[in-house]
């Protein structure tokens, strides 16, 4: 399938944005300035200002003289990129492949997308008219190559949709500036009398390269489609992604639920057909006012069950702010894994459905209170009691053997609490200790058991643990550290 690209050029990006924000400025000459060597230079202006002869790079003082009533604003550096980024996200409703084309353009890969609005003309017209409605002056071009689309968008006066294979005819009529060349090459071409691409398009490659360097050849042949040029999409497209465009924007909870359910159903069926299940998914909604939002979910096992995935999203539906209405939902399965074949589990006699039920339960809980609050412990190779268990959430992780040769308390205080204790003989258990103003007379004791830190954690840190029982039969785990301070660390059952 031949590729089709669209280049969008925002003619007056910054000034149009300013008017969009402050309607009172419409119809006035506007310009943006930026500081340069102690002067203020014009860096963006609108059509009204350009009628007075304003050019980029002019000083602000000169501009004010030639254009009476000119309104000047200071430009924040990088602002145009932020605006372009927003527009790129907005354009995701037309195509998933969008690339920024700084300073004031966007490139879209629209291969196979144009039928969404009928045909190519209607597709391009829809984009341009919607941007015009917002108050942005844009020029758009469509062609088989990025270079050609850029050229017609920036320089052509007619024929913005180049028919497939018509790049040569289209760019021949355009000036050399349409080829995205650097200014010194453009100057040289101008001096030599090449005022149009048709003047040098037929010249052999070697001649052009010798005269003007490699870039002119590259750009020319990229525009003609004989050299490859790639579009680096702003958002990496996800292989398992589904869209649900809505004709009439929706804003009620019922409508959103129906739409999301349909969307999940479509994706789940697709995953089911390929034997996959989703582990993580993102639901993006685009609103009519150009804003968007996202919901994320994660699952503990590959899931392809619509109801389960829907339930996970449903718990976060409060976060969706539809405002004036939502016009598009996008569901991306950001992480997929081969799903367990239930039928084979049935034969092997494992309780596959049981663990699936548990995993779905944990998904539900994680969606409400957060996955970080769910713990499952596996033995870890450490000596310090606080570190003896490692945390995991993977239900299928197999544990090595737990040690049970040494008694450990069932209730562990974290951090240990300081106690007052008295040991009559060093390295012997204390006779009594006071914890929270309560005196415990020790009747029986086991120990000491010395537990040392790993040397790379803390040099010569050790603790002497005693397992003690007071006269009322309550059992405690106390220790003295290297400095002979006593701590209560846990309660034995």
């Amino acid at each position, binding site marked *: 399938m031949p590729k089709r690209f669209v280049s969008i050029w925002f003619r007056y990006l910054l000034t149009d944005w300013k008017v969009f924000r402050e309607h009172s400025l419409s119809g006035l000459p506007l310009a943006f300035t930026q500081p340069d060597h102690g002067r203020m230079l014009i860096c963006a202006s609108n059509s009204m200002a350009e009628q007075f002869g304003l050019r980029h790079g002019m000083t602000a003082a000169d501009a004010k003289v030639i254009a009476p009533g000119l309104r000047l604003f200071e430009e924040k550096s990088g602002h145009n990129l932020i605006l372009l980024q927003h527009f790129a996200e907005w354009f995701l409703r037309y195509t998933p492949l969008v690339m920024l084309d700084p300073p004031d353009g966007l490139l879209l890969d629209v291969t196979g997308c144009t039928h969404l609005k009928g045909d190519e003309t209607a597709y391009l017209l829809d984009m341009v008219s919607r941007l015009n409605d917002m108050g942005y002056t844009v020029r758009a071009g469509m062609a088989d190559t990025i270079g050609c689309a850029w050229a017609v968008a920036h320089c052509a006066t007619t024929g913005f949709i180049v028919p497939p294979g018509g790049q040569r005819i289209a760019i021949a009529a355009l000036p050399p500036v349409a080829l995205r060349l650097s200014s010194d090459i453009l100057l040289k071409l101008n001096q030599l009398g090449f005022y149009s691409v048709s003047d040098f398009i037929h010249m052999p490659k070697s001649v052009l390269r010798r005269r003007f360097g490699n870039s002119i050849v590259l750009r020319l042949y990229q525009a003609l489609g004989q050299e490859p040029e790639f579009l680096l999409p702003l958002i990496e497209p996800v292989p398992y992604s589904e869209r649900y465009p809505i004709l009439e924007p929706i804003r009620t909870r019922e409508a959103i639920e129906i739409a999301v359910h349909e969307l999940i159903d479509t994706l789940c069926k697709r995953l089911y057909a390929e034997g996959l299940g989703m582990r993580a998914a993102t639901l993006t909604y685009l609103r009519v006012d150009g804003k968007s939002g996202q919901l994320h979910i994660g699952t503990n096992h590959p899931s392809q069950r619509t109801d389960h995935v829907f339930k996970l999203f449903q718990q976060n539906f409060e976060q969706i702010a539809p405002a004036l209405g939502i016009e598009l939902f996008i569901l991306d399965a950001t992480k997929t894994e081969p799903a367990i074949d239930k039928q084979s589990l049935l034969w092997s006699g494992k*309780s596959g*459905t*049981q*663990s*699936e*039920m*548990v995993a*779905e*339960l*944990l998904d*539900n*809980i994680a969606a*409400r*209170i*957060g996955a970080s*609050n*769910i*713990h*499952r*412990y*596996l*033995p870890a190779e450490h000596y310090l*009691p606080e570190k*003896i*268990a490692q945390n995991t959430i993977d*239900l299928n*992780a197999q*544990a090595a053997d*737990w*040690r*049970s040769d040494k*008694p*450990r*308390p*069932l*209730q*562990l*205080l*974290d951090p240990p609490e300081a106690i007052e204790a008295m040991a009559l003989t060093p390295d012997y258990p204390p006779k009594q200790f006071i914890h929270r103003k309560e005196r415990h007379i020790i*009747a*029986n*004791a*086991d120990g000491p058991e010395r537990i040392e830190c790993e040397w790379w954690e803390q040099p010569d840190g050790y603790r002497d643990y005693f*397992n*003690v*029982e007071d*006269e*009322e*039969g*309550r*059992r405690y785990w106390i220790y003295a550290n290297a400095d002979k301070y006593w701590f209560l660390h*846990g*309660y*034995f*059952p």
Partner: protein
Amino acid sequence: MQATKQEIIDKLRQDISAWEGFRPQVPGEGESFGLGPMEQSFQGRVFPTGVLHEFISTGPEETAAIGGFLAGLMQVLLKDGGICIWASFSRRIYPPALKRFGINPDRIVFIDVQREKDVLWVTEEALKCKGIAAVICETRQLNFQESQRLQLTIEQSQVTGFILRKGAKLVPNTVCLTRWTVRPLKTQLRPGLPGVGHPRWQIELIRVKNGRPGSWTVEWKNKGFKFIETRKELLQRYA
């Protein structure tokens, strides 16, 4: 006539307990919990599963003792595989210690909620899930309505639930089948031996529906419960 009256009353009792959602326990149906004399207290002489049990704790020492007793019970519930959910608000349980009570700590999923009221939500969700062997809920408050909700959930799923109430000031009435306290007791080794012996508890069954409350001295030894007859009981037996 007298016998028929008794029969009618028995039948009525059974019906009422069925209406209340309790499935009658059939002797020898479930696993044996090795609870010996304690099992005489329950209807059908089997430790009831698929119901709510309530444990009252007044301090960390008692919580630890209850943990030990619970772990001993869980050992049986988790025998055929399965997962246990431990929901709590301020958890201090130290997983590796459970191994001594016959459970692999990796079979328990701990859910530590940030807000206290979420504990009961998590418990209810977990009790709904039939694939779970048991649910332990550490909470401070549980009122009558909340316990009813949990009981209704259990009637559908037949999962065993344990409510561990730590430091509760008021202990209101609940629909739980049983109410227990477990106090640590002084251990006893053979005379003359120094050190701390096997964990020993005074387990008291304060309330039980259709059963007899009682109190037992139990020791945890060789991965099983061992019932110790007190001096008084011995005297009674040999008198």
